[in-house]
């Protein structure tokens, strides 16, 4: 083997070893690198109960209710499997809406309500003009109707 081939082999072996080490580290860290817990994970007891954590999911349709007189908002966060009620006092981001993603930071209280002190909106990776979104929505509804009929 020529010297340059030896050097190439050495580099490739070192890179493979480095890749494996990184894989093992990331594997060991696992879910600790996740930014938030889903409602299912919280109900399964994977989220901390004694300190602040983040809860992420969809804002359930028809669940947002505003209190009279102050900025308190209550809504339900769901991952289409389990859901958790959330209460938040403050200004919501513009993209916050029913049926949209959100991430809240806070703590569970004794009644099983998540008391949030920060709410962020999470949007999806799809971009289109409003007409197209409306047309896709209508198409989706038509498809649902034809399957239920």
């Amino acid at each position, binding site marked *: 083997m020529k010297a*340059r081939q030896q050097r190439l082999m050495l580099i490739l072996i070192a890179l493979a070893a480095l890749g494996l080490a990184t894989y093992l580290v990331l594997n060991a860290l696992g879910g600790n690198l*996740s*930014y938030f817990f889903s409602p299912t994970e919280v109900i399964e007891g994977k989220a901390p109960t004694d300190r602040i954590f983040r809860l992420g999911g969809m804002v359930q349709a028809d669940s947002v209710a505003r209190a009279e007189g102050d900025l308190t908002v209550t809504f339900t966060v769901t991952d289409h499997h389990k859901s958790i009620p959330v209460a938040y006092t403050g200004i919501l*981001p*513009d*993209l916050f809406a029913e049926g949209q993603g959100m991430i809240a930071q806070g703590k569970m209280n004794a009644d099983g309500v998540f008391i949030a002190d920060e709410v962020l*909106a999470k*949007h999806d990776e*799809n971009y289109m003009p409003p007409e197209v979104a409306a047309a896709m929505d209508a198409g989706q509804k038509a498809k649902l109707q034809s399957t239920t009929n």
Partner: protein
Amino acid sequence: MPSNIFQFSSPATFYPLAGRLVPWFSVIAIILIAVGLYMSFFVAPTDYKQGEGYRIIFVHVPAAWMSMLIYLVMAGWSIVGLVFNARLSAMMAQALAPTGAMFTFVALWTGAFWGKPMWGTWWVWDARITSELILLFLYLGYIALIGSIDDRRRGDRAGAILLLVGVVNIPIIYFSVEWWNTLHQGSTIKMNAQTIMDETMLVTMLIMACGFWAYSIAVALIRVRQIILQREHHASWVREIIGDQA
């Protein structure tokens, strides 16, 4: 004229070639970025959810792509440099580093500007954003490292090893949105599923990306010519050029 491609690995033959390529890539970059910016502001439609604010995507995403791609190219040059002991490879990596660092910074900066109105925050420590910040530190660390070693050959080798060790960060950045829960949304352009993006928006983003490519090549070639002159200043052909200008 050199008869085979390996002769271009000699700084003396590459210097004039790079000089001839610079105007072409500069013109392509100016045209594509001008057309891309015009389309970003006036042609691409308003988004159904984010309104006009989403338009920062046309700078944000191509800049983020370039930040990762330039790093991979630099790592590739490092392998070539270590294996073939070619001086020019290290010079190419060195020439690309400031552009890569700039695009990383632009991606983080535009991301903060986009995050504030849409998510409601300038910055979060989620996996995507944190790993991109680490990429910025890798670029700055590489620039500082090769700058701090006076012996060029040792400096080049140390820089190459740093670049190769840091290359594990690139798949982490790219796949972070799939591997972990993040505030950052997933990739719009997917390899294994349908891309849901309006065609005009997609074309605009790709034009901007090609413009950034051409810009990166042009400035890297300009920079590598300066590096060649600095490093080869003892060579007779460099003395002739410098003598002409002096």
